[in-house]
């Protein structure tokens, strides 16, 4: 059975390699606006993939994930603005604050599941958004906090390659975690937490780990995103932001590694195409999700996999039919 799908697995690695090479050489043909869309897509790929670790793999439906991206950005932005620290210190601060906050939020919601967890994390996120908005003397609230760019040049090509490298590295780290026994523990917690405990899985430890890990990844992504867009506002913490991430993952395939990788760019591109529709584009995404949920709940990634498998089966049958009969 494993051998049967081995060619598909190798094909996945090959495809991933080709996509990375394609993205690496693509700027030769892309204008600045297209490069910006790719950068946005890569940011949301990281956000969606890390949220998928929580909701898709562990069953922890957190609605606070966007807060960690904002926290990473604000931690660095505020330190640079008020204490004139170098960027590298801002980066370390983003990691440490998101890691610690992720851990404490994880502790807080440790015994919650489903709707309770969603509401508690949403409340956390809203409190943080309101704090940022209310503390405008420090954060400049809705006016926005200026954040220095990472590069002196205005050419987006540097950000393009930076985000590409960052996405590859972070996805690789997430992939390695999921391929280790930790990935199985997370899925076991989602399937049946008590059964996992009864077999010796330290569910408390792994739930805290994944909340801390996913929050830190979001914090790192938020740091780079903040220094790319150079202005931070509470909009980054809005419910629309997490709504978009949820839609990306559900559209691509909740609980699949490839799902967010497909869902995020599709939604970012659609979002840009429907920019003139303003808030109506969220209505469109929601309709997309309803259609996906109604027709193919496992998302586009699983649909594509099924098609590929069916194609593989047909090819196998065709090859068998071609064999001369003895």
């Amino acid at each position, binding site marked *: *059975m*494993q051998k049967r799908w081995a060619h598909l697995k190798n094909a996945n690695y090959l495809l991933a390699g080709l996509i990375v090479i394609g993205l690496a050489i693509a700027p030769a043909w892309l204008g600045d606006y297209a490069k910006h869309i790719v950068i946005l897509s890569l940011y949301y790929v990281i956000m969606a993939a890390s949220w998928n670790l929580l909701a898709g793999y562990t069953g922890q439906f957190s609605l606070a994930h966007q807060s960690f991206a904002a926290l990473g950005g604000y931690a660095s932005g505020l330190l640079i603005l008020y204490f004139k620290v170098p960027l590298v210190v801002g980066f370390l601060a983003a990691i440490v604050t998101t890691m610690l906050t992720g851990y404490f939020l994880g502790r807080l919601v440790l015994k919650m599941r489903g709707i309770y967890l969603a509401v508690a994390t949403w409340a956390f996120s809203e409190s943080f958004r309101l704090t940022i908005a209310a503390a405008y003397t420090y954060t400049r609230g809705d006016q926005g906090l200026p954040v220095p760019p990472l590069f002196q040049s205005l050419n987006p090509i540097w950000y393009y390659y930076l985000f590409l490298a960052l996405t590859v590295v972070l996805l690789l780290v997430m992939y390695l975690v999921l391929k*280790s*026994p*930790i990935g*199985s*523990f997370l*899925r*076991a917690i*989602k*399937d*049946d937490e*008590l*059964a*996992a*405990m*009864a*077999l*010796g*899985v*330290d*569910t*408390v430890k792994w739930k805290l780990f994944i909340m801390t890990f996913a929050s830190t990844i979001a914090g790192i992504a938020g740091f780079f995103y903040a220094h790319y867009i150079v202005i931070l506002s509470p909009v980054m913490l809005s419910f629309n932001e997490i709504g978009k991430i949820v839609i990306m993952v559900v559209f691509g395939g909740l*609980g699949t590694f490839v799902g967010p990788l497909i869902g995020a760019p599709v939604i970012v591109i659609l979002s840009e195409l429907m920019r003139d529709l303003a808030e109506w584009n969220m209505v469109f995404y929601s309709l997309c999700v309803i259609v996906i949920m109604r027709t193919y709940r496992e998302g586009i990634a699983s649909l594509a996999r099924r098609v590929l498998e069916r194609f593989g089966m047909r090819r196998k049958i065709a090859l068998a039919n071609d064999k001369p009969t003895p």
Partner: protein
Amino acid sequence: MEPIIETRNLTRRFGGLVAVNEMNLAIERGEVRGLIGPNGSGKTTLINLISGVYEPTSGDVLFNGKSIAGWSPNRIANYGLLRSFQVPRLFGSMSVMENMLIARFADFRLDYRKDYDGATEKAQQLLEMAELDPLRDKPAKILSGGQKALLQIVRGFMVDNISVYLLDEPFAGVNVVVKETIMKVIEQMRQAGVTFLLVSHEMASVRRMCSRVTVMAQGARIAEGSMEEVAANPQVIDAYLGGKK
């Protein structure tokens, strides 16, 4: 000889209800102990107390002479005391083989790769023993009720240092063939040194598997001995058939 599992005056209250009341139980190493009693007598609560799902209101649980009362279920499992559930609890989205391997690597160490081949081999042997090996790559959710019960039991044997296995109604809702296979697996693992506490309503199976039986009623132990001895005990007959008031 010191018992491998011992409960001392173990009590668990749920509000005004005393589910387990001053329960004393001692199981010898290598034994297959039967635990029977009418519905609601506290058998599953006792298993939940020993395995750490519930914390005792009072009393103690000793495993290898060490108090484990109040420990988390995963800590108890890592210490070698496993349990199964009345309704099989599998990881439905995972394959049969993944269900087996998760038990082996639950006590996570970073050098898990070293053990991977050995663990797969052990899982394969256990699946063959349970006659589940043709299903090793199938998702656990598609198994039949009997196959789920079997998988749940053999999965516990993947834990490296298992020494006690608490089986809660392992024969419930399974056909004769699966029942025979479960009994075969229990006997083989008993010979390999595992001690069992077998909760069951299947008197014929308990009679066949267990040299000693403990009977519970209303949360307390009312009799203990061979199946013949407890079957002749008037208190046991009263508990099952309803005694005179």
